[in-house]
């Protein structure tokens, strides 16, 4: 199972993004500055944004799901129960997983942004997807929910997970780091060797590396293990 980009170029007005590389099974993290093209690449990988040149090949992928940066873009149901049903999932357990039990009749657009994010992610993650693309999945979630999401993502036994995020503190164990800069996607490689040349690394990771304590990965457990290493 893999997604391969060969000579891909996407254009929006006078801005463009070039991308090359292969996303195999496992968890990938893509970072980049504001406006660097993360969301555009996320859409392109999901088949929702056309490249003007190059090819995107999906091998062994039967189902694709993308979580948009803005959860409000996903809403189609007039209440939480029918929103869940629109995703084809059983409302009761999904609302319980999202911490929204007893609120079936509420309008999704009246939820707080964090609650809405929890709802959409719970609906999405209630089913299995070969290719799961998450655009800023941690934004608006509180620290408890961020850690819970990390656990859920780490528990995916198969498939490709690609996370586009600015999150600095709560991250799952990942397999590969990518960065977008200057209109180009770059593969920083596998963990932990990728950490040394990860420009957008969180300050905590950079500080640990500067102290010679290279973490094995970027989850909180890995960072604390490195920090406490003697």
């Amino acid at each position, binding site marked *: 199972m893999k997604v391969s980009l060969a000579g891909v170029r996407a254009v929006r007005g006078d801005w463009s993004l070039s991308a090359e590389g292969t996303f195999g099974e496992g968890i990938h993290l893509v970072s980049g500055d504001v*406006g660097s093209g993360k969301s555009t690449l996320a859409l392109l990988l999901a088949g929702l944004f056309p490249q003007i040149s190059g090819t995107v090949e999906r091998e062994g992928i039967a189902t694709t799901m993308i979580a948009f940066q803005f959860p*409000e873009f996903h809403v189609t149901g007039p209440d939480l129960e029918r929103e869940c049903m629109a995703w084809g999932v059983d409302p009761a357990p999904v609302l319980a997983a999202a911490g929204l039990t007893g609120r079936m009749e509420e309008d999704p657009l009246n939820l707080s942004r964090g609650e809405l994010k929890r709802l959409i992610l719970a609906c999405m993650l209630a089913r299995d997807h070969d290719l799961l693309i998450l655009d800023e999945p941690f934004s608006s*979630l509180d620290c408890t929910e961020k850690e819970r999401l990390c656990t859920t993502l780490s528990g995916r036994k198969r498939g490709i997970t690609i996370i586009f995020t600015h999150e600095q503190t709560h991250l799952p164990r990942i397999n590969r780091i990518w960065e977008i800069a200057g209109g180009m996607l770059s593969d920083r490689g596998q963990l932990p060797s990728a950490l040394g040349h990860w420009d957008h690394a969180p300050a905590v990771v950079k500080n640990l590396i500067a102290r010679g304590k290279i973490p094995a990965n970027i989850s909180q457990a890995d*960072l604390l293990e490195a920090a406490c290493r003697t």
Partner: protein
Amino acid sequence: MITAERLRYRTIAIDNLRIEPGITSVIGPNGSGKTTLLKLLAGIAVPESGTILVNGVPPRNTEVGWVNEFPDRNILFGSAFEEIASPLRFRHSPCAEIEDRVGLCMQSVGITNLRTRPMQDLSGGEKVLVALAAALVFRPQVLVLDEYDSHLDGNRAREIARIIRKSRIPYVIHCTQDAEAAVSGDSVIFLEDGKVRYAGTPGTVFASLAGTVYYPLSWRCRA
């Protein structure tokens, strides 16, 4: 000073809260009432009972800059320039002054490249930066920011925090899920179930949160 007394509004129940001038971070679980409290501080919502006052006057009687947690809900106009100019135009500022101040503000926030870009074409982070510039351009007394940092990369978030600090706006109140950002402010309010559970300096509030997921990772990694 900002004061709230016997404040009741929807889930919010705050008997006594004092916010000194400076940068205050509001943290807490999803659904704890952070956005509701921010709306009260901005004058977008009015208390059902009790009072909230900024230097003795209601928020609606003072100049407040506001950035919504839903980036698209900040947008009224078609281009970044029009959006940032709008608070000055609503105040009937002279055209030349508007041109100058919007230009300086865009430069300060680092978005001069967005000047003529249609708002609908901007990324989430860029929309937040435009909204932030629109909130800063008229130099409000109170700047209320609802999780603006969750859409920004680490470097940009730190740069914006520096710009906000330098702006010398008397009261900056921002909601964040980033404990590292909250640490760098002057005071922290931890909300839970609509009530203030802890309030004070970052040192005292986070000492109370030691052992929880809200405790800053950088402090845990200092060992």
